[in-house]
């Protein structure tokens, strides 16, 4: 237990150093989202001559709303929701290839002293989860500051804004639905996907791991199915919000199952697979 604590401590410190520029990238990314939401609100308020002040939840709802189920029969163009798509790829970029970078130089000292490849992989999975949480925290802090300056520093949904900007009936979003669909599921799903990305990165080159994530993100936007977990990070795919949506409680269970399965699979494959060989 003590070893994994120090391995994680090393990963957080070294990962933070390695990711420093990515913190700035994340801040800029969320500032762009906020500016986009704000400009849309502004157009609406000017047009309707009403005073709308978006809250923290309004911004978050907009960023994680995703898109409704795509129906190719309706002859509408398939447009990936930009904010949601950028968040998913932003997380993949934020988690980055630090785990593979840590298999050389300074990282060798830690690998050998860990005494166990499985323990080392577990610490990298935990690092990925922590990095994902960091990404969300940075995002929420930026949104909160923006709301403080250009809206209302409140943790509630505005019905009019929800309907106009996100096309979501805020009345159906109770507190518990908001917590599970807007706060818990996007984060939990991102953690599951980032752990998958990390384990995959130890087996194939990081670039292929990124490509796999892009495919999963795009496919999740196109198909509404439990088999593509990034569906769970879209509010527009959840049953309390849209008819025929996915059950958020089943999604939580699948996410937890995916996380456990990926870590076990990672440990099992890494015992036999020479993950240090890729860079030779």
């Amino acid at each position: 237990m003590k070893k994994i604590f120090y391995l994680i401590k090393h990963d957080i410190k070294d990962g933070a150093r390695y990711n420093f520029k990515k913190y700035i990238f994340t801040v800029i990314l969320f500032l762009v989202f906020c500016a986009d939401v704000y400009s849309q609100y502004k157009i609406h308020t000017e047009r309707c001559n009403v005073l709308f002040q978006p809250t923290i939840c309004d911004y978050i709802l907009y960023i994680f709303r995703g898109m409704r189920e795509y129906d190719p029969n309706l002859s509408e163009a398939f447009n990936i929701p930009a904010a949601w798509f950028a968040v998913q790829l932003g997380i993949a970029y934020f988690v980055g290839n630090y785990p593979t970078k840590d298999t050389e130089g300074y990282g060798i000292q830690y690998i050998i002293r860990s005494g166990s490849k499985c323990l080392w992989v577990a610490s990298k999975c935990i690092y990925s989860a922590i990095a994902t949480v960091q990404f969300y925290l940075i995002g929420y802090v930026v949104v909160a500051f923006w709301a403080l300056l250009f809206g209302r520093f409140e943790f509630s949904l505005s019905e009019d804004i929800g309907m106009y900007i996100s096309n979501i009936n805020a009345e159906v979003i109770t507190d518990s639905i908001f917590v599970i669909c807007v706060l818990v599921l996007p984060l939990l799903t991102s953690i599951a996907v980032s752990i998958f990305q990390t384990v995959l990165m130890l087996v194939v080159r990081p670039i292929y791991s990124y490509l796999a994530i892009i495919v999963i993100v795009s496919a999740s936007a196109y198909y509404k199915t439990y088999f593509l977990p990034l569906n769970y990070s879209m509010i527009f795919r959840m049953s309390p919000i849209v008819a025929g949506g996915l059950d958020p409680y089943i999604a939580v269970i699948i996410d937890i199952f995916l996380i456990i399965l990926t870590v076990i699979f990672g440990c099992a494959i890494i015992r036999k697979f020479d993950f240090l060989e890729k860079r030779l």
Partner: protein
Amino acid sequence: MYIDIVNYTKIIKKRTVLADVSLNFERGKIYGFRGANGSGKTMLLRAISGLITPTFGEIRIDGEILGNDISFPRSIGVLIESPAFLASYTGLRNLELIAEIKGDATKEDLEKSLCLVGLEVGDRRTYGKYSLGMKQKLGIAAAIMEKPDILVLDEPFNALDEESVLQIQNLIIDEKERGATVFLACHDAQILDSIVDETIIVENGMARRAQ
């Protein structure tokens, strides 16, 4: 035997980098590895360290199969490739951070290992400001600080001045007398012959004991 390498073959990208290597090693001896660049010396040291897994064959350490029973040797100090540490910390702080994982080395052990390689304990300079020779010495200090049973040193004399070479040679002999099994790769035959108990010749991925 303490360490047995049994028919060890490693193929990377269809290239055989280690070919059917079978060797055995005893405790408390210094084994020197000699060979041309790209002959497989470093790869063999990686194999002993558990940093690569065999395509065929196995390595047993005290009866335990590396990569099967254990991921890495239970007690090992390694200097492979160029040493790399955190640039913004002093040498001692870097050692402290690495030593935290196993918790085997005391602060006195870390300070002693710095002294043994000729680095000053109170030096406030950060690793980023170290010369190449000092970086190499810190790498050696990290390898010996936990008093490992197996010490793997790949070209430890690189970038060292004459006086430091002598100092590290004496240190390696001291490690052997402590009971450590030392694996040493060095391109300088004169240095190698002066301290090793046995020399292993590595050629085209094959290894044999020198006569």
